[in-house]
Protein backbone atom coordinates (compact mmCIF):
# COMPACT_ATOMS: atom_id res chain seq x y z
CA UNK A 1 0.00 0.00 0.00
CA UNK A 2 2.75 2.43 1.01
CA UNK A 3 4.83 1.44 -2.02
CA UNK A 4 1.82 2.00 -4.27
CA UNK A 5 1.23 5.48 -2.86
CA UNK A 6 4.93 6.26 -3.17
CA UNK A 7 4.96 5.26 -6.83
CA UNK A 8 1.82 7.33 -7.43
CA UNK A 9 3.13 10.54 -5.86
CA UNK A 10 6.72 10.15 -7.06
CA UNK A 11 5.43 9.54 -10.58
CA UNK A 12 3.18 12.59 -10.32
CA UNK A 13 6.08 14.71 -9.10
CA UNK A 14 8.38 13.59 -11.94
CA UNK A 15 5.64 13.89 -14.55
CA UNK A 16 4.72 17.39 -13.40
CA UNK A 17 8.39 18.40 -13.32
CA UNK A 18 8.93 17.22 -16.92
CA UNK A 19 5.74 18.96 -17.99
CA UNK A 20 6.89 22.14 -16.24
CA UNK A 21 10.09 22.24 -18.29
CA UNK A 22 8.44 21.17 -21.53
CA UNK A 23 5.42 23.51 -21.46
CA UNK A 24 5.58 26.50 -23.81
CA UNK A 25 2.80 28.44 -22.13
CA UNK A 26 4.20 29.97 -18.89
CA UNK A 27 0.90 29.50 -17.04
CA UNK A 28 0.87 25.76 -17.81
CA UNK A 29 4.44 25.65 -16.50
CA UNK A 30 3.33 27.34 -13.29
CA UNK A 31 0.41 24.89 -12.86
CA UNK A 32 2.80 21.96 -13.36
CA UNK A 33 5.11 23.41 -10.71
CA UNK A 34 2.17 23.58 -8.28
CA UNK A 35 1.57 19.91 -9.05
CA UNK A 36 5.22 19.15 -8.20
CA UNK A 37 4.94 20.97 -4.87
CA UNK A 38 1.73 19.20 -3.88
CA UNK A 39 3.11 15.76 -4.82
CA UNK A 40 6.23 16.53 -2.77
CA UNK A 41 4.01 17.48 0.17
CA UNK A 42 2.29 14.08 -0.10
CA UNK A 43 5.70 12.40 -0.07
CA UNK A 44 6.62 14.35 3.07
CA UNK A 45 3.45 13.10 4.76
CA UNK A 46 4.48 9.53 3.91
CA UNK A 47 7.92 10.22 5.43
CA UNK A 48 6.21 11.09 8.77
CA UNK A 49 6.93 14.82 8.41
CA UNK A 50 3.44 16.36 8.39
CA UNK A 51 4.64 19.80 9.48
CA UNK A 52 7.04 20.15 6.55
CA UNK A 53 4.29 18.93 4.24
CA UNK A 54 1.82 21.53 5.51
CA UNK A 55 4.39 24.32 5.31
CA UNK A 56 5.34 23.18 1.80
CA UNK A 57 1.73 23.57 0.67
CA UNK A 58 1.14 26.86 2.50
CA UNK A 59 4.38 28.60 1.51
CA UNK A 60 5.25 27.21 -1.92
CA UNK A 61 1.97 26.06 -3.46
CA UNK A 62 -0.20 28.59 -1.64
CA UNK A 63 1.82 31.80 -1.45
CA UNK A 64 4.78 31.90 -3.84
CA UNK A 65 3.06 30.20 -6.76
CA UNK A 66 -0.04 32.38 -6.33
CA UNK A 67 2.23 35.39 -6.80
CA UNK A 68 3.83 33.79 -9.87
CA UNK A 69 0.42 33.03 -11.40
CA UNK A 70 -0.69 36.55 -10.46
CA UNK A 71 2.25 38.11 -12.32
CA UNK A 72 1.77 35.87 -15.38
CA UNK A 73 -1.90 36.85 -15.47
CA UNK A 74 -1.12 40.53 -14.97
CA UNK A 75 1.49 40.70 -17.72
CA UNK A 76 -0.51 38.31 -19.91
CA UNK A 77 2.68 36.72 -21.24
CA UNK A 78 2.26 35.32 -24.74
CA UNK A 79 3.67 31.98 -25.84
CA UNK A 80 7.34 32.44 -26.61
CA UNK A 81 8.80 31.56 -29.96
CA UNK A 82 11.13 28.61 -29.91
CA UNK A 83 14.78 29.63 -30.22
CA UNK A 84 16.69 26.35 -30.60
CA UNK A 85 20.00 27.87 -31.68
CA UNK A 86 20.49 29.70 -28.40
CA UNK A 87 20.13 26.58 -26.28
CA UNK A 88 21.96 24.07 -28.50
CA UNK A 89 25.32 24.81 -26.92
CA UNK A 90 23.94 23.76 -23.53
CA UNK A 91 23.03 20.21 -24.60
CA UNK A 92 26.45 18.60 -23.83
CA UNK A 93 26.48 20.22 -20.39
CA UNK A 94 22.96 18.95 -19.71
CA UNK A 95 23.94 15.43 -20.76
CA UNK A 96 27.01 15.53 -18.52
CA UNK A 97 25.04 16.80 -15.52
CA UNK A 98 22.30 14.21 -15.92
CA UNK A 99 24.96 11.47 -16.23
CA UNK A 100 26.42 12.60 -12.89
CA UNK A 101 22.92 12.61 -11.35
CA UNK A 102 22.20 9.08 -12.56
CA UNK A 103 25.60 7.92 -11.31
CA UNK A 104 24.81 9.35 -7.88
CA UNK A 105 21.41 7.64 -7.79
CA UNK A 106 22.95 4.34 -8.88
CA UNK A 107 25.66 4.65 -6.24
CA UNK A 108 23.09 5.29 -3.50
CA UNK A 109 20.95 2.34 -4.56
CA UNK A 110 24.03 0.09 -4.76
CA UNK A 111 25.24 1.32 -1.36
CA UNK A 112 21.87 0.77 0.31
CA UNK A 113 21.62 -2.76 -1.12
CA UNK A 114 25.10 -3.81 -0.01
CA UNK A 115 25.10 -2.17 3.45
CA UNK A 116 24.48 -4.67 6.25
CA UNK A 117 22.18 -2.53 8.45
CA UNK A 118 18.45 -2.72 7.83
CA UNK A 119 16.52 0.54 8.22
CA UNK A 120 14.33 0.78 11.32
CA UNK A 121 10.64 0.85 10.59
CA UNK A 122 9.74 2.90 13.67
CA UNK A 123 8.26 6.30 12.97
CA UNK A 124 10.16 8.99 14.81
CA UNK A 125 8.56 12.20 16.07
CA UNK A 126 11.19 14.34 14.38
CA UNK A 127 8.71 15.67 11.84
CA UNK A 128 6.08 16.71 14.36
CA UNK A 129 5.35 20.36 15.07
CA UNK A 130 6.48 20.31 18.69
CA UNK A 131 9.90 18.78 17.98
CA UNK A 132 10.54 21.16 15.07
CA UNK A 133 9.52 24.13 17.22
CA UNK A 134 11.71 23.00 20.12
CA UNK A 135 14.66 22.56 17.74
CA UNK A 136 14.17 25.95 16.11
CA UNK A 137 13.98 27.87 19.36
CA UNK A 138 16.77 26.06 21.24
CA UNK A 139 19.60 24.36 19.33
CA UNK A 140 19.13 26.22 16.06
CA UNK A 141 18.08 29.61 17.42
CA UNK A 142 20.98 31.55 15.87
CA UNK A 143 20.58 30.22 12.30
CA UNK A 144 16.82 30.76 12.63
CA UNK A 145 17.25 34.40 13.66
CA UNK A 146 19.87 35.03 10.97
CA UNK A 147 17.51 33.62 8.34
CA UNK A 148 14.69 35.87 9.51
CA UNK A 149 17.07 38.86 9.39
CA UNK A 150 17.98 37.90 5.84
CA UNK A 151 14.32 37.82 4.83
CA UNK A 152 13.73 41.20 6.48
CA UNK A 153 16.68 42.63 4.53
CA UNK A 154 15.21 41.26 1.30
CA UNK A 155 11.85 42.93 2.03
CA UNK A 156 13.44 46.29 2.92
CA UNK A 157 15.70 46.07 -0.15
CA UNK A 158 12.74 45.40 -2.44
CA UNK A 159 10.87 48.36 -0.95
CA UNK A 160 13.87 50.66 -1.42
CA UNK A 161 14.42 49.58 -5.01
CA UNK A 162 10.75 49.97 -5.87
CA UNK A 163 10.44 53.47 -4.41
CA UNK A 164 13.71 54.93 -5.68
CA UNK A 165 13.14 58.38 -7.20
CA UNK A 166 9.89 60.35 -7.20
CA UNK A 167 6.47 58.83 -7.43
CA UNK A 168 6.02 60.34 -10.89
CA UNK A 169 7.57 58.49 -13.83
CA UNK A 170 10.32 60.46 -15.63
CA UNK A 171 8.21 60.82 -18.76
CA UNK A 172 5.29 62.44 -16.91
CA UNK A 173 3.76 65.51 -18.48
CA UNK A 174 1.09 68.05 -17.61
CA UNK A 175 -2.23 68.34 -19.40
CA UNK A 176 -3.22 71.96 -20.10
CA UNK A 177 -6.09 73.36 -18.05
CA UNK A 178 -7.12 73.46 -14.38
CA UNK A 179 -5.24 70.90 -12.32
CA UNK A 180 -6.07 69.21 -9.03
CA UNK A 181 -3.60 66.71 -7.63
CA UNK A 182 -2.73 65.41 -4.23
CA UNK A 183 0.15 66.76 -2.19
CA UNK A 184 1.37 63.16 -2.02
CA UNK A 185 2.60 63.55 -5.59
CA UNK A 186 4.53 66.72 -4.86
CA UNK A 187 6.73 65.98 -1.90
CA UNK A 188 7.26 62.49 -0.62
CA UNK A 189 8.27 63.77 2.82
CA UNK A 190 4.68 64.86 3.37
CA UNK A 191 3.02 61.52 2.64
CA UNK A 192 0.06 61.13 4.92
CA UNK A 193 -1.23 64.62 4.19
CA UNK A 194 -3.54 63.80 1.32
CA UNK A 195 -5.26 67.18 0.88
CA UNK A 196 -5.44 68.01 -2.84
CA UNK A 197 -3.54 71.01 -4.19
CA UNK A 198 -5.10 73.12 -6.91
CA UNK A 199 -3.18 74.69 -9.73
CA UNK A 200 -5.24 76.88 -12.04
CA UNK A 201 -2.77 77.18 -14.87
CA UNK A 202 -0.67 74.67 -16.67
CA UNK A 203 2.49 76.62 -15.89
CA UNK A 204 1.79 76.54 -12.17
CA UNK A 205 1.20 72.80 -12.35
CA UNK A 206 4.45 72.30 -14.24
CA UNK A 207 6.31 74.21 -11.59
CA UNK A 208 4.72 72.26 -8.71
CA UNK A 209 5.29 68.85 -10.28
CA UNK A 210 8.68 69.68 -11.72
CA UNK A 211 7.90 68.27 -15.18
CA UNK A 212 7.83 69.87 -18.59
CA UNK A 213 4.95 70.45 -20.97
CA UNK A 214 7.08 70.11 -24.07
CA UNK A 215 7.13 66.32 -23.78
CA UNK A 216 3.37 66.09 -23.77
CA UNK A 217 2.93 68.47 -26.70
CA UNK A 218 5.45 66.60 -28.80
CA UNK A 219 3.49 63.39 -28.09
CA UNK A 220 0.39 64.99 -29.56
CA UNK A 221 2.01 65.74 -32.87
Amino acid at each position, binding site marked *: *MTALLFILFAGLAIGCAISMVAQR*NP*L*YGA*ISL*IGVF*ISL*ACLYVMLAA*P*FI*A*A*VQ*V*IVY*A*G*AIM*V*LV*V*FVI*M*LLNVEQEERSPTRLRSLIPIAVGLSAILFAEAAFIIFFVHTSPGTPTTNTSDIG*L*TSSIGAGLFTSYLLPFEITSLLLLMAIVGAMTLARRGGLLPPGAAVVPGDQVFSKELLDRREIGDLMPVTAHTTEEAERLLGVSREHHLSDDE
Partner: protein
Amino acid sequence: MEDLKHAGFVLAGILVAFFVVMTMVAYTVLAERRVLGFIQGRLGPNRVGPGGFLQPLADLVKFIFKEDIVPDKSTRFVYFLAPVIATTAALMTIVVYPFGPEVHLPVLGTIRLVIARFDVALLYVLGITSVGVYGVALAGWSSNNKYSLMGGLRSAAQMISYELALGLALIGVILQSGTLDLYSIVEQQAGHLGITGWNIIWAQELGFLIYLISAIAETNRVPFDLPEAETELVAGFHTEYSAMKFALFFLAEYVNMFTVSMLATTLFLGGWNGPFVHQLPWLGVFYFLGKVILFLFLYIWLRGTLPRFRFDQLMSFGWKFLVPTAIINIVITATLQWSPVFDYVSKFLKTSTGWWG
Protein backbone atom coordinates in the same frame (compact mmCIF):
# COMPACT_ATOMS: atom_id res chain seq x y z
CA MET B 1 -7.52 -6.36 9.56
CA GLU B 2 -7.19 -3.39 11.88
CA ASP B 3 -6.12 -1.27 8.90
CA LEU B 4 -9.14 -2.40 6.91
CA LYS B 5 -11.48 -1.55 9.79
CA HIS B 6 -9.88 1.88 10.10
CA ALA B 7 -10.17 2.51 6.35
CA GLY B 8 -13.84 1.49 6.53
CA PHE B 9 -14.47 3.95 9.37
CA VAL B 10 -12.76 6.74 7.45
CA LEU B 11 -14.70 6.03 4.26
CA ALA B 12 -18.01 5.85 6.12
CA GLY B 13 -17.13 9.07 7.97
CA ILE B 14 -16.33 10.88 4.73
CA LEU B 15 -19.61 9.74 3.18
CA VAL B 16 -21.67 10.83 6.19
CA ALA B 17 -19.87 14.18 6.52
CA PHE B 18 -20.15 14.81 2.77
CA PHE B 19 -23.87 14.08 2.85
CA VAL B 20 -24.51 16.25 5.92
CA VAL B 21 -22.44 19.17 4.60
CA MET B 22 -23.96 19.01 1.11
CA THR B 23 -27.49 18.96 2.51
CA MET B 24 -26.77 21.87 4.81
CA VAL B 25 -25.11 23.81 1.99
CA ALA B 26 -28.13 23.29 -0.25
CA TYR B 27 -30.44 24.55 2.45
CA THR B 28 -28.12 27.47 3.24
CA VAL B 29 -28.71 28.65 -0.32
CA LEU B 30 -32.46 28.39 0.18
CA ALA B 31 -32.25 30.06 3.61
CA GLU B 32 -30.18 32.85 2.11
CA ARG B 33 -32.79 33.55 -0.54
CA ARG B 34 -35.68 33.42 1.94
CA VAL B 35 -33.94 35.55 4.59
CA LEU B 36 -32.80 38.10 2.00
CA GLY B 37 -36.39 38.20 0.80
CA PHE B 38 -37.54 38.90 4.35
CA ILE B 39 -34.91 41.64 4.82
CA GLN B 40 -35.86 43.27 1.52
CA GLY B 41 -39.60 43.05 2.14
CA ARG B 42 -40.45 40.38 -0.45
CA LEU B 43 -41.20 36.65 -0.35
CA GLY B 44 -38.32 34.74 -1.93
CA PRO B 45 -38.71 31.29 -3.48
CA ASN B 46 -41.70 29.59 -1.85
CA ARG B 47 -43.38 27.60 -4.66
CA VAL B 48 -41.49 24.30 -4.98
CA GLY B 49 -42.68 22.06 -2.18
CA PRO B 50 -44.06 23.32 1.14
CA GLY B 51 -42.54 26.77 1.79
CA GLY B 52 -40.00 26.30 -1.00
CA PHE B 53 -38.51 23.27 0.73
CA LEU B 54 -37.66 21.45 -2.52
CA GLN B 55 -36.17 24.52 -4.23
CA PRO B 56 -32.51 23.26 -3.96
CA LEU B 57 -33.49 20.10 -5.86
CA ALA B 58 -35.20 22.15 -8.58
CA ASP B 59 -32.12 24.38 -8.82
CA LEU B 60 -29.86 21.36 -9.23
CA VAL B 61 -32.01 19.92 -12.02
CA LYS B 62 -32.02 23.32 -13.72
CA PHE B 63 -28.22 23.57 -13.55
CA ILE B 64 -27.77 20.10 -15.03
CA PHE B 65 -30.09 20.72 -17.97
CA LYS B 66 -28.85 24.21 -18.87
CA GLU B 67 -26.79 24.71 -22.01
CA ASP B 68 -23.06 24.60 -21.30
CA ILE B 69 -21.43 27.45 -23.23
CA VAL B 70 -17.63 27.45 -23.57
CA PRO B 71 -16.14 30.73 -24.85
CA ASP B 72 -14.49 30.34 -28.25
CA LYS B 73 -11.04 31.66 -27.40
CA SER B 74 -10.79 30.31 -23.86
CA THR B 75 -7.81 28.25 -22.73
CA ARG B 76 -9.73 24.97 -22.69
CA PHE B 77 -7.75 22.85 -20.24
CA VAL B 78 -7.45 25.56 -17.58
CA TYR B 79 -11.05 26.63 -18.18
CA PHE B 80 -12.21 23.12 -17.25
CA LEU B 81 -9.67 22.70 -14.46
CA ALA B 82 -10.58 25.89 -12.55
CA PRO B 83 -14.02 24.88 -11.17
CA VAL B 84 -12.61 21.45 -10.29
CA ILE B 85 -9.82 23.01 -8.23
CA ALA B 86 -12.24 25.38 -6.51
CA THR B 87 -14.68 22.62 -5.50
CA THR B 88 -12.02 20.07 -4.53
CA ALA B 89 -10.15 22.55 -2.33
CA ALA B 90 -13.39 23.61 -0.68
CA LEU B 91 -14.46 20.04 0.12
CA MET B 92 -11.05 18.70 1.21
CA THR B 93 -10.95 20.50 4.55
CA ILE B 94 -14.14 18.89 5.86
CA VAL B 95 -12.28 15.76 7.02
CA VAL B 96 -10.36 17.42 9.87
CA TYR B 97 -13.22 19.04 11.79
CA PRO B 98 -14.38 17.28 14.97
CA PHE B 99 -18.17 17.04 14.70
CA GLY B 100 -18.64 15.62 18.17
CA PRO B 101 -17.05 13.96 21.21
CA GLU B 102 -16.54 10.23 21.84
CA VAL B 103 -19.80 8.37 21.35
CA HIS B 104 -20.86 4.77 21.90
CA LEU B 105 -22.33 2.89 18.98
CA PRO B 106 -24.11 -0.46 19.49
CA VAL B 107 -21.88 -2.71 17.34
CA LEU B 108 -18.83 -0.61 16.49
CA GLY B 109 -17.94 0.39 20.04
CA THR B 110 -16.62 3.77 21.14
CA ILE B 111 -15.56 6.10 18.35
CA ARG B 112 -14.60 9.75 18.11
CA LEU B 113 -16.71 11.83 15.72
CA VAL B 114 -13.75 13.13 13.73
CA ILE B 115 -12.65 11.64 10.42
CA ALA B 116 -8.93 12.43 10.37
CA ARG B 117 -7.14 13.53 13.51
CA PHE B 118 -3.55 14.56 12.99
CA ASP B 119 -0.77 16.73 14.31
CA VAL B 120 -1.04 19.65 11.87
CA ALA B 121 -4.79 19.80 11.18
CA LEU B 122 -4.91 23.59 11.45
CA LEU B 123 -2.00 24.06 9.03
CA TYR B 124 -3.66 21.59 6.66
CA VAL B 125 -6.78 23.77 6.64
CA LEU B 126 -4.72 26.89 5.92
CA GLY B 127 -2.77 25.13 3.16
CA ILE B 128 -5.83 23.79 1.36
CA THR B 129 -7.54 27.17 1.68
CA SER B 130 -4.58 28.86 0.01
CA VAL B 131 -4.67 26.34 -2.85
CA GLY B 132 -8.34 27.25 -3.37
CA VAL B 133 -7.26 30.69 -4.66
CA TYR B 134 -6.14 29.06 -7.92
CA GLY B 135 -9.67 28.04 -8.82
CA VAL B 136 -10.82 31.64 -8.92
CA ALA B 137 -7.61 33.10 -10.38
CA LEU B 138 -7.33 30.52 -13.19
CA ALA B 139 -11.03 30.83 -14.00
CA GLY B 140 -10.55 34.55 -14.48
CA TRP B 141 -7.48 34.08 -16.67
CA SER B 142 -8.72 31.25 -18.88
CA SER B 143 -12.08 32.79 -19.80
CA ASN B 144 -10.47 35.30 -22.19
CA ASN B 145 -12.72 38.07 -20.91
CA LYS B 146 -11.53 41.32 -19.35
CA TYR B 147 -14.14 41.29 -16.60
CA SER B 148 -13.22 37.74 -15.67
CA LEU B 149 -9.51 38.60 -15.66
CA MET B 150 -10.08 41.61 -13.41
CA GLY B 151 -12.22 39.52 -11.09
CA GLY B 152 -9.54 36.82 -10.94
CA LEU B 153 -6.77 39.34 -10.25
CA ARG B 154 -8.80 41.10 -7.58
CA SER B 155 -9.59 37.81 -5.95
CA ALA B 156 -5.95 36.65 -5.92
CA ALA B 157 -4.81 39.96 -4.39
CA GLN B 158 -7.62 39.95 -1.86
CA MET B 159 -7.16 36.36 -0.74
CA ILE B 160 -3.38 36.69 -0.35
CA SER B 161 -3.84 39.85 1.73
CA TYR B 162 -6.53 38.50 4.02
CA GLU B 163 -4.92 35.08 4.45
CA LEU B 164 -2.19 36.89 6.36
CA ALA B 165 -4.59 38.49 8.84
CA LEU B 166 -6.50 35.19 9.11
CA GLY B 167 -3.35 33.19 9.90
CA LEU B 168 -2.14 35.76 12.42
CA ALA B 169 -5.53 35.75 14.16
CA LEU B 170 -5.28 31.97 14.62
CA ILE B 171 -1.85 32.25 16.28
CA GLY B 172 -3.51 33.57 19.43
CA VAL B 173 -5.54 30.35 19.75
CA ILE B 174 -2.48 28.22 18.97
CA LEU B 175 -0.46 30.02 21.65
CA GLN B 176 -3.22 29.47 24.15
CA SER B 177 -3.81 25.80 23.46
CA GLY B 178 -0.27 24.76 22.54
CA THR B 179 -1.37 22.38 19.78
CA LEU B 180 -2.44 22.40 16.13
CA ASP B 181 -4.71 19.38 16.54
CA LEU B 182 -8.33 20.56 16.29
CA TYR B 183 -9.74 17.76 18.46
CA SER B 184 -7.43 18.67 21.36
CA ILE B 185 -8.22 22.35 20.93
CA VAL B 186 -11.94 21.55 21.31
CA GLU B 187 -11.30 19.26 24.28
CA GLN B 188 -9.44 22.07 26.06
CA GLN B 189 -12.48 24.31 25.79
CA ALA B 190 -14.64 22.27 28.14
CA GLY B 191 -15.86 24.24 31.16
CA HIS B 192 -18.79 25.01 33.44
CA LEU B 193 -22.05 24.48 31.52
CA GLY B 194 -19.78 23.63 28.58
CA ILE B 195 -19.67 27.34 27.84
CA THR B 196 -17.17 29.12 30.12
CA GLY B 197 -14.20 27.34 28.57
CA TRP B 198 -14.69 28.74 25.07
CA ASN B 199 -11.70 30.60 23.69
CA ILE B 200 -13.87 33.57 22.78
CA ILE B 201 -14.62 34.04 26.49
CA TRP B 202 -11.03 33.65 27.69
CA ALA B 203 -9.13 35.29 26.07
CA GLN B 204 -9.43 35.53 22.26
CA GLU B 205 -12.13 38.19 21.77
CA LEU B 206 -9.90 40.30 19.53
CA GLY B 207 -8.62 37.26 17.63
CA PHE B 208 -12.19 36.14 17.02
CA LEU B 209 -13.21 39.49 15.51
CA ILE B 210 -10.16 39.57 13.23
CA TYR B 211 -10.78 35.98 12.17
CA LEU B 212 -14.45 36.68 11.44
CA ILE B 213 -13.70 39.71 9.25
CA SER B 214 -10.87 38.07 7.32
CA ALA B 215 -12.86 34.86 6.89
CA ILE B 216 -15.64 36.83 5.20
CA ALA B 217 -13.03 38.37 2.89
CA GLU B 218 -11.48 34.94 2.22
CA THR B 219 -14.81 33.57 1.06
CA ASN B 220 -15.48 36.60 -1.19
CA ARG B 221 -18.75 37.45 0.51
CA VAL B 222 -20.45 40.81 1.03
CA PRO B 223 -19.04 43.34 1.97
CA PHE B 224 -15.83 41.93 0.46
CA ASP B 225 -17.29 40.46 -2.75
CA LEU B 226 -15.17 42.56 -5.11
CA PRO B 227 -14.11 39.61 -7.31
CA GLU B 228 -17.72 39.35 -8.49
CA ALA B 229 -18.89 42.94 -8.02
CA GLU B 230 -21.81 42.86 -10.46
CA THR B 231 -22.04 46.61 -10.93
CA GLU B 232 -18.43 46.81 -12.13
CA LEU B 233 -17.46 43.38 -13.45
CA VAL B 234 -20.75 41.80 -14.66
CA ALA B 235 -20.14 38.67 -12.54
CA GLY B 236 -16.38 38.77 -12.09
CA PHE B 237 -14.36 35.60 -12.48
CA HIS B 238 -17.34 33.40 -13.37
CA THR B 239 -18.83 35.67 -16.05
CA GLU B 240 -18.15 33.11 -18.79
CA TYR B 241 -19.17 30.03 -16.84
CA SER B 242 -22.56 28.41 -17.28
CA ALA B 243 -24.53 25.31 -16.32
CA MET B 244 -22.77 22.75 -14.08
CA LYS B 245 -19.40 24.56 -14.16
CA PHE B 246 -21.04 27.66 -12.72
CA ALA B 247 -22.82 25.44 -10.21
CA LEU B 248 -19.44 24.10 -9.06
CA PHE B 249 -18.19 27.63 -8.31
CA PHE B 250 -21.46 28.37 -6.54
CA LEU B 251 -21.06 25.18 -4.53
CA ALA B 252 -17.42 25.99 -3.70
CA GLU B 253 -18.41 29.41 -2.37
CA TYR B 254 -21.03 27.99 -0.04
CA VAL B 255 -18.87 25.06 1.09
CA ASN B 256 -16.12 27.59 1.85
CA MET B 257 -18.58 29.59 3.93
CA PHE B 258 -19.48 26.41 5.73
CA THR B 259 -15.87 25.37 6.42
CA VAL B 260 -14.75 28.78 7.73
CA SER B 261 -17.81 28.72 9.98
CA MET B 262 -16.78 25.27 11.21
CA LEU B 263 -13.25 26.53 11.88
CA ALA B 264 -14.60 29.53 13.82
CA THR B 265 -16.83 27.22 15.86
CA THR B 266 -13.98 24.79 16.53
CA LEU B 267 -11.38 27.37 17.51
CA PHE B 268 -13.39 30.09 19.25
CA LEU B 269 -16.86 28.82 20.21
CA GLY B 270 -15.87 25.55 21.85
CA GLY B 271 -16.73 23.18 18.99
CA TRP B 272 -19.12 20.56 20.29
CA ASN B 273 -18.95 21.77 23.91
CA GLY B 274 -22.23 22.79 25.49
CA PRO B 275 -24.47 22.01 28.47
CA PHE B 276 -24.80 18.27 29.35
CA VAL B 277 -22.48 17.05 26.60
CA HIS B 278 -20.71 14.72 29.07
CA GLN B 279 -24.00 13.01 29.93
CA LEU B 280 -25.35 12.89 26.36
CA PRO B 281 -22.43 12.89 23.88
CA TRP B 282 -24.72 13.01 20.83
CA LEU B 283 -25.86 16.48 21.93
CA GLY B 284 -22.39 17.66 20.87
CA VAL B 285 -23.14 17.15 17.19
CA PHE B 286 -26.22 19.35 17.47
CA TYR B 287 -24.35 22.05 19.40
CA PHE B 288 -21.63 22.04 16.74
CA LEU B 289 -24.00 22.28 13.79
CA GLY B 290 -26.12 24.85 15.66
CA LYS B 291 -23.13 27.13 16.15
CA VAL B 292 -22.18 26.72 12.48
CA ILE B 293 -25.73 27.69 11.48
CA LEU B 294 -25.42 30.84 13.63
CA PHE B 295 -22.38 31.86 11.60
CA LEU B 296 -24.13 31.10 8.31
CA PHE B 297 -27.04 33.26 9.42
CA LEU B 298 -24.57 36.06 10.21
CA TYR B 299 -23.22 35.80 6.66
CA ILE B 300 -26.71 36.13 5.19
CA TRP B 301 -27.58 38.97 7.53
CA LEU B 302 -24.44 40.86 6.49
CA ARG B 303 -25.28 40.32 2.82
CA GLY B 304 -28.69 41.85 3.38
CA THR B 305 -27.41 44.91 5.24
CA LEU B 306 -23.92 46.02 4.18
CA PRO B 307 -22.76 47.80 1.01
CA ARG B 308 -19.56 46.77 -0.80
CA PHE B 309 -16.06 48.11 -0.04
CA ARG B 310 -14.04 50.03 -2.60
CA PHE B 311 -10.92 48.11 -3.66
CA ASP B 312 -8.39 50.55 -2.15
CA GLN B 313 -10.42 50.61 1.08
CA LEU B 314 -10.33 46.81 1.12
CA MET B 315 -6.55 46.72 0.74
CA SER B 316 -5.78 49.45 3.27
CA PHE B 317 -8.23 47.92 5.76
CA GLY B 318 -6.56 44.52 5.46
CA TRP B 319 -2.93 45.62 5.51
CA LYS B 320 -3.04 48.75 7.69
CA PHE B 321 -5.67 47.77 10.22
CA LEU B 322 -6.29 44.01 10.43
CA VAL B 323 -2.67 42.82 10.23
CA PRO B 324 -1.33 45.23 12.92
CA THR B 325 -4.32 44.46 15.14
CA ALA B 326 -3.67 40.73 14.75
CA ILE B 327 -0.02 41.27 15.76
CA ILE B 328 -1.19 43.24 18.82
CA ASN B 329 -3.47 40.30 19.65
CA ILE B 330 -0.47 37.94 19.52
CA VAL B 331 1.49 40.22 21.88
CA ILE B 332 -1.47 40.45 24.28
CA THR B 333 -1.98 36.68 24.28
CA ALA B 334 1.71 35.98 24.82
CA THR B 335 1.86 38.47 27.71
CA LEU B 336 -1.26 36.98 29.30
CA GLN B 337 0.14 33.46 28.97
CA TRP B 338 3.23 34.55 30.84
CA SER B 339 1.36 36.20 33.73
CA PRO B 340 0.28 33.98 36.65
CA VAL B 341 -3.25 35.45 36.66
CA PHE B 342 -3.90 33.79 33.31
CA ASP B 343 -3.29 30.31 34.71
CA TYR B 344 -5.54 31.00 37.68
CA VAL B 345 -8.46 32.23 35.56
CA SER B 346 -7.91 29.44 33.00
CA LYS B 347 -8.08 26.81 35.74
CA PHE B 348 -11.34 28.31 36.97
CA LEU B 349 -12.98 28.63 33.52
CA LYS B 350 -11.58 25.67 31.60
CA THR B 351 -12.29 22.52 33.52
CA SER B 352 -13.60 19.27 32.16
CA THR B 353 -15.39 18.50 35.44
CA GLY B 354 -17.41 21.72 35.73
CA TRP B 355 -21.07 22.17 36.69
CA TRP B 356 -23.34 20.54 34.08
CA GLY B 357 -20.37 20.32 31.73
